């Protein structure tokens, strides 16, 4: 069962990365350019995930109910809503739009 294999490999990789912070000599990770790059890669990954979760359908870019969900989520974040509220609003708005027959 290859999904099981990847679940375990990914989990252990993330664990090893955490442990590296405690074991790797500080000079390697403490470089400000390295920590800036790491912080920006986190931003870049999340931004790319927002795009792919909102617009990707297989290998096509599509506009559907998820666009409404992300717009509502952005509005909620502007109004400083907590994480869970943003997620629930995303689900509710996508479900509503679909119940109304679009996307």
């Amino acid at each position, binding site marked *: 069962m290859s999904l099981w294999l*990847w679940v375990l490999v990914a989990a252990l990789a993330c664990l090893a990365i955490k442990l590296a912070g405690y074991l790797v000599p500080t000079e390697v990770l403490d470089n400000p350019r390295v*920590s800036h790059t790491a912080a920006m890669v986190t931003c870049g*990954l999340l931004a790319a995930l927002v795009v792919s979760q909102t617009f990707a359908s297989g290998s096509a870019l599509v506009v559907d109910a998820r666009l409404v969900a992300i717009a509502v989520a952005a509005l909620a974040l502007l109004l400083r809503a907590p994480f869970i509220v943003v997620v629930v609003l995303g689900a509710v708005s996508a479900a509503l739009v679909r119940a109304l027959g679009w996307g």
Partner: protein
Amino acid sequence: MSRSAPGVRSAVRQGVSVGLATGAYGISFGALSVAAGLDVWQTCVLSLLMFTGGSQFAFIGVIGAGGAGAAATATAALLGVRNSLYGLQMASLLRPRGRWKPAAAHLTIDESTAVALAQPADDLPARRAGFWATGLAVFGFWNLATLGGALLGDVLGDPARWGLDGAAAAAFLALLWPRLARRQAQAIGVVAALVAAITIPLVPAGIPVLAAAAVTAVVAWFQYREPPHVRADEQEAPA
């Protein structure tokens, strides 16, 4: 250094409330994971063993989109890199020895680091208490909530009908949002979004996110400007 019992109590209270709040969105992780095609046990193993929310959402996101296991793993690992930078800070704060090191490392996540660093800098016991209380509370609630969400997701059926795909997009936006305070981060976000949008029709699912990460790393590396008080030759000195 002051050894304040009130400081420790307040740090523990904060940790538990952060744990409760995090548990609430563990439910959404569990449900989304099952919707993405993982079974209940795989979902629980991710929360128990990977235990870093961003990477977990990314892993199931790539799998759910039909991406390869290797691409999902690479995305999760890259998103986890920030934890090693937290670990660096927490190692000097906690100074864990021997078998405590893996435990501290496992609990090193956004929330535990944030609560530890939010305690007064001169109150080391409060900072340590904040780290351990938050880490343990999030671990407990996150895993319980994951199981609950996964069981719930199992009975919900078609994820799109319940807007769970919209929830996933919203979750990534909510994770990204607080990191966009600086102009450089906003620029990086735009670049990464464009790279993803351009590559989605061209390459297999999962790869666009990795391509965006690679471009981001190169841009960020050259975007970095050392603070004016640090001389260039000091900055470039080999470690």
